């Protein structure tokens, strides 16, 4: 068949297909009949492209058909459900189930975080100098002033507009740190391990040091509540990062690239869950923990409830759903 005859025979068909593609690309939907016929028409055009190439029709024609195929491909091969439908499933089942599915990495991340936290806490509690090995003098000084009960008593209750300021600050700073912990997993897990250890050391050091100074009345009621979400979020970000690292270090029988791509989907679930926990933590920290007027006993009671919720959520949520699926 000569090219001209070929073009004449199918030109209308191509134009109609292109018109429908244009509609789809503008986000409009086709009629039911046209939508059903689209895959068959796409395959037809794929065949035309093959023919055009094997019969050495002009490069222009092949280029045009290639463009149609490319655009058709983009419309046919889409992945994923609508976002909103996923959110509910994610919260009620997907995320906690994913945490449990990678339980070993969770315990590993928890160990890498909690162990230095405990050790640094003890070290700083019993030795007045140890905190200076962890952070510069200026920072220690700042921290001491922040929680000094003598100064607190004089200070006024923070106004609600500074609460929003603190929320923004915690959100930006802490969640950013969580994302970095995750991304560090790309360095064969080393980055995640580093951030887990480092954050454990610093947080443990601060807690130990302030307890040694006897600032327990200001420090512990403040951190107990949001700690449930914030500390867990750090571990979850670490878990996601370790998952990336594990895919690189132990790909099994597939290539590292393939292992990484397989790990990516669960990692997204974990890191989104972690980000959500950071968000909740920042909210509690800014609007609840910082309020100095509330009695410490109430704060401890609420903190107990929050910890129980986090543990129950991660341990139980979505169990039935995951069995059903």
């Amino acid at each position, binding site marked *: 068949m000569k090219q001209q005859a070929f073009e004449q025979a199918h030109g209308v068909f191509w134009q109609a297909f292109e018109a429908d593609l244009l509609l789809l690309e503008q986000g409009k939907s086709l009629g039911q009949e046209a939508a059903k016929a689209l895959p068959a028409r796409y395959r037809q055009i794929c065949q035309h492209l093959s023919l055009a190439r094997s019969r050495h029709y002009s490069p222009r024609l092949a280029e045009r058909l290639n463009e149609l195929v490319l655009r058709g491909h983009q419309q046919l091969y889409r992945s994923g459900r609508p976002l909103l439908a996923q959110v509910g499933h994610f919260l009620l089942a997907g995320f906690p189930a994913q945490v449990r599915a990678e339980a070993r990495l969770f315990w590993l991340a928890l160990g890498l975080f909690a162990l230095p936290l405990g050790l640094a806490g003890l070290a700083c509690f019993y030795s007045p100098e140890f905190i200076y090995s962890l952070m510069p003098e200026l920072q220690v000084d700042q921290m001491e002033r922040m929680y000094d009960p003598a100064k607190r008593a004089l200070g006024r209750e923070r106004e609600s507009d500074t609460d929003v300021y603190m*929320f923004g600050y915690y959100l930006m700073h802490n969640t950013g740190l969580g994302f970095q912990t995750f991304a560090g997993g790309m*360095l064969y897990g080393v980055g995640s391990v580093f951030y887990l250890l480092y954050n454990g050391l610093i947080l443990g050091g601060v807690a130990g040091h302030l307890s040694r100074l006897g600032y327990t009345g200001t420090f512990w009621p403040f951190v107990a509540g949001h700690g449930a979400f914030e500390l867990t979020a750090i571990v979850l970000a670490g878990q996601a990062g370790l998952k990336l690292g594990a895919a690189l270090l132990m790909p099994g029988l597939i290539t590292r690239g393939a292992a990484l791509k397989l790990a*990516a989907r669960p990692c997204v679930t974990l890191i989104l869950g972690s980000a959500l926990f950071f968000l909740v933590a920042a909210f509690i920290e800014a609007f609840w923990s910082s309020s100095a007027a509330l009695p410490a006993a109430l704060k401890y009671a609420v903190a107990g409830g929050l910890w129980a919720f986090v543990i129950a959520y991660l341990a139980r949520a979505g169990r039935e759903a995951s069995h059903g699926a």
Partner: protein
Amino acid sequence: MLDTRTALETPEGIDLNLTVAGPIPRGLAWALDFLIRLGIYIGLILVLAQLEAFGIGLAMIAAFVLEWFYPVLFETLNHGVTPGKKALGLKVVHDDGSPVSWNASLIRNLLRAADFLPAFYALGSLISAFRPDFKRLGDIAAGTLVIYADKPPQAHALPPGEAEAPRVSLRLAEQQALLAFAERAPRLSPERQAELARLLVPELAARPETAVQELLAQGRWLAGPTR
């Protein structure tokens, strides 16, 4: 291989041709996006600073969302194109050429933090420079490619005139040679044009005197209608 065309086989057994974008255009696109974000930050701070601590808090929330999710939102809602990428004609797609999904976009953009190490995307640039598909770490994990959205322009600037189909069916290389002749003809002297065209006299052109015009007409036909 000097160019960055990659062929990608679809389930229908067709090769899609994609042109992968290198570190320089991608870096420029990033810089543009960064400037846009910077502009937004400055605007936000100027406006929100009026509200003092409350406003700065809002600005920090906005900065957090923009810094981490600006590319994700554009890539997923705008067919893989951020404003910077649009300016450079780039686009993000999956390895199989399909539009980038939320998951893939989140992975590739959160892992920017790894590509950024130790400073200014040094690691990401280094790794992408060693790969034929120019992927940075985030692209490797997410399974995404950054490609040129528009095909390289087909510059068939032919002298205007009649178009006529070739008298025999030609193979691809022959068609390309004919096109190349038609494109370059205006830059050759008339004598040289005639000399070259005469070589094809019995096969493609009827008479030596009009050989040049006949070949040009066929070249125009091969190049397709001018828009």
